[in-house]
């Protein structure tokens, strides 16, 4: 079930062992040192190394376009703080109206954690001819008509 939790790669164990070996043998110097026989970069370069390995995966032009950090919802919050910059005229977010909780909660909470942001008025898209079994809630059309961002 890759759609929930993927199978464990055999290499996980060897990579973790390599990390533990670095830590046990050279301690704090692991931040800056990588062993020739280790599959891992120095600790401070590991995230950049993972970015380098991800170019084909996401179609990035360079490793600087990719970073590994935190977990999904935290990253969504961080990105929203940067990329959702509402103005009086443009303030809506076009989003799925019944998304997975990690997506639906974030925009709303963003407005509370970043006080400069106004409450977003979600322009919610509803699937046409939706079947009640799958999408049991009506689209919140009132939200999409909200025009003035509240402070």
């Amino acid at each position, binding site marked *: *079930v*890759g*759609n*929930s*939790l*993927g*199978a*464990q*790669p055999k*290499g*996980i164990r060897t*990579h*973790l062992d*390599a990390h533990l070996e670095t830590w046990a043998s050279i301690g704090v110097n*692991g931040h800056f040192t990588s062993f020739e026989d280790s*599959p891992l970069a120095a*600790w401070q370069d*590991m*995230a950049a190394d*993972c*970015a380098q*390995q991800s170019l*084909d*995966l*996401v*179609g990035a*032009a*360079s490793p*600087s*376009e*990719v*970073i*590994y*950090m*935190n*977990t*999904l919802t935290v*990253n*969504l919050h*961080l*990105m*929203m*703080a*940067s*990329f959702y*910059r509402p*103005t009086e005229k*443009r*303030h*809506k*977010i*076009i*989003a*799925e109206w019944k*998304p*997975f909780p990690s*997506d639906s909660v974030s925009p709303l909470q963003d407005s509370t954690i970043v006080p400069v942001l106004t409450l977003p008025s979600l*322009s919610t*898209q509803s699937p046409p001819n939706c079947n009640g079994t*799958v999408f049991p809630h009506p689209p919140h059309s009132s939200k999409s008509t909200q025009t003035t961002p509240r402070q």
Partner: protein
Amino acid sequence: MTISTDHILSIIDEHADSTALLLLPGIQYYTGQLFDIPRITAHARARGITVGWDLAHAVGNVELSLHDWDVDFAVWCTYKYLNAGPGAIAGVFVHERHHHPNPNPVKDELGLGYKHRLAGWYGADKAVRFNMEKEFRPAEGAHGWQVSNPSAVDLACVRAALGVFRRTSMKELRDKAVVLTGYLEWLLNGLLQESVGTGEKGEPAFRILTPANPLERGSQLSLLLRGGLLGRVSEKLAEGGVVVDVRKPDVIRVAPVSMYCRFEDVWGFVEVLKKALEEE
């Protein structure tokens, strides 16, 4: 059940003047629908809308060209199709055009003209990270969005998982996945044609929610079972050694992952499902 690209584009047109951001999943987790990311992105960006994608169900599952598609940002987790383990550290994409400081900084940007962010010390350029300077000078690109230092154990798992992908390519994985999921669909449609598990009033045992067009889906097919079947079917699948994901009330999500599932596994699943439905 699924959402057409034209419908999404019409929503964009309708709200174009008042929309700041478009944020959608690359693949919808419930129906398994793969959205037309390049077309939707281009349409929204042409109307001045910032575009972000949640690729939790898409990365490692379908081919992506985030840079060429001009996507502003994307986020994904690494424990589904990337296999880095439960709660593993996650990924972020920030397009190159947001990497460089604005030569004429405006109020909404960091002091040096870089894009506004929740900045933390670890996002500072490696050369000056330990200088404890007052002014925040971010590391290049997406790396400048780091807030604090990541766990080396977490990164070791991601590195191991990515290493497997480096031994093949997304094109090869996707090529096999299209056929593998197509085979699953063909077998499932066979069950429906044979009326396996059909109800007393002729209601079919299940319906496939996922689009039939391989270009509009990844590995996953979502089956909406006839009401009341789920408990027994999931019990029988577990007994038969099949691991699928169950979404109550009535949906099972079946994802034959091309990296480690064989055609024989797909056949075995359908045999177990058939038995479970026949016993009803």
